[in-house]
């Protein structure tokens, strides 16, 4: 395993686009949280009554333990940046025909795909560590003496890891199927940013629950919006929290199916 990961590292370490994407990820995850934190601060730190009312309504989503969920939710908006990186991992191999060369040189087809699986897992781990750092820093700056609450809601670390891994797996899957980087990136970004949101909107308008089970939505629902975004709709918030275990199971199922298909298909096809 480590050997596969090391070889993947040899492929990536001098790839400029990889470092650009890592840099963008490293900026965007803290960035989006900082922006929302600023908005929150401006809404609540005035001395007028409106600010006091807002503070009462919103609570402090950037203090422990809420910060774990808040940062996870806002950070997950930017998963498309590492997704670009993951698509490049596989489309580069196709365009350089090195997916053939790696097999010729002695990897089994399973080893090749395992290398890619480890890539996706490694990127997910890096992003999760980034999320933990952002949450710790933001939470520490906003919490006062409530150290007991630090551990509450830390299960969102696991949920964030699973959500990121699942969504990056979908990106990888699209790259694996379409082979060409621009095509795969276009399809993923169009689906991630536009198409699924339109479909969900239409389905919700018709009150069809299937909207909750679209490929990205399955894992999106691992991290519900922070409580303050539900405002007075506490019932809906409770339902979304209760649905998390179901979505964990569905996410695991879909992600396993994706990788199972990728392994099976790569073992069956001619590598051209």
């Amino acid at each position: 395993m480590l050997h596969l990961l090391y070889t993947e590292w040899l492929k990536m370490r001098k790839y400029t686009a990889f470092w650009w994407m890592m840099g963008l990820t490293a900026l965007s995850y803290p960035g989006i949280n900082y922006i929302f934190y600023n908005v929150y601060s401006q809404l609540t730190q005035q001395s007028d009554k409106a600010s006091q009312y807002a503070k009462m309504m919103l609570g402090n989503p950037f203090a422990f333990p809420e910060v774990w969920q808040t940062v996870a939710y806002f950070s997950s908006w930017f998963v498309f940046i590492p997704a670009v990186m993951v698509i490049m991992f596989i489309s580069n191999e196709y365009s350089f025909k090195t997916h053939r060369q790696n097999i010729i040189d002695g990897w089994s087809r399973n080893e090749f795909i395992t290398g890619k699986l480890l890539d996706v897992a490694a990127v997910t781990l890096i992003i999760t560590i980034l999320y933990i750092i952002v949450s710790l820093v933001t939470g520490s700056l906003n919490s006062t003496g409530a150290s007991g609450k630090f551990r509450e809601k830390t299960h969102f670390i696991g949920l964030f890891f699973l959500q990121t891994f699942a969504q990056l797996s979908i990106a990888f899957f699209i790259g694996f199927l379409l082979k060409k980087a621009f095509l795969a990136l276009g399809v993923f970004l169009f689906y991630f940013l536009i198409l699924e949101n339109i479909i969900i909107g239409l389905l919700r308008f018709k009150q069809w629950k299937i909207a909750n089970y679209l490929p990205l939505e399955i894992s999106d629902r691992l991290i519900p919006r922070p409580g303050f975004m539900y405002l007075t709709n506490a019932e809906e918030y409770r339902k979304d929290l209760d649905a998390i275990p179901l979505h964990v199971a569905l996410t695991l199922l879909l992600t396993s199916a994706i990788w199972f298909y990728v392994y099976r298909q790569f073992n069956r096809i001619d590598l051209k």
Partner: protein
Amino acid sequence: MVLNIRQISKSYKTVRALQQVSFDVPENCVYGILGPNGSGKTTLLGILLDILKPDSGTFQWFGQGGNAEIRKKIGSLLETPNFYSYLSGAENLRITQSVSGRGRAKDIDDVLHTVGLHNRRWAPFKNYSLGMKQRLAIAAALLGNPKVLVLDEPTNGLDPAGIAEVRELIVQLYRRGHTIIMASHLLDEVEKVCTHVAILKNGQLLASGSTEEILSEEDIVELGAENITQLKELAAGLGGKMLENHHTNGLIHISFPKGKIRPEEINRYCFERGIILQHLALKRKKLETLFFELTGK
């Protein structure tokens, strides 16, 4: 045996790329796989290296079915050189080394020296010329000094000096006990280095075996006289087979079964019928001649 191939067939939609191809590659030989473009050479090598899946048939490397561990021991160049364009030659070889487990860091320098790329080893692969890319692919195949090499058109893109260097390299490797399996359509190149050949056409194996055996089935007599037309008429009575497509420089070529004709008999035959031969030579059949006969080109 290094390799046994049994009844391998492969089709692409309506095209039958390989049809029940079988032959064996013994240890320490240079085995040339010959054939015109589209004859199935690269398809066969692709199957042997697990890039393509055969429809039917089997093969064994070193008496075992093909698997990743066995491929690690084989230095291979298939079709075009495939490397990461943004990495340098040396960095690409580091990946080859990591994937195959063949060789150490020092060996990368050595193979780059061997193929004449050492001074450009840190240049990005994308900036290499076609010939340099081919040299890097040969370096990758040589990494770790594998006992078996599979080289598909190894001289593609090389200049005449490069072609001669690769030919010399193959001969040296053979002398040191290596087995080289090479596909090529350059007959002259193959004839100069190969100890064995397999000839493919439209996916069918037309002949296989040692070059000596395959080429020594016939003797070719080369004749020349002032009146070539009269010589041709007379030669028809010798009983051999006139090679119509291969008379050059006023010479004619006649093929006889091995050992069935002696030059002095031909000379006497012509002289007694009033033809003075200006040229008479008994020649080994050229691979090119055999190839054109078999493939009908």
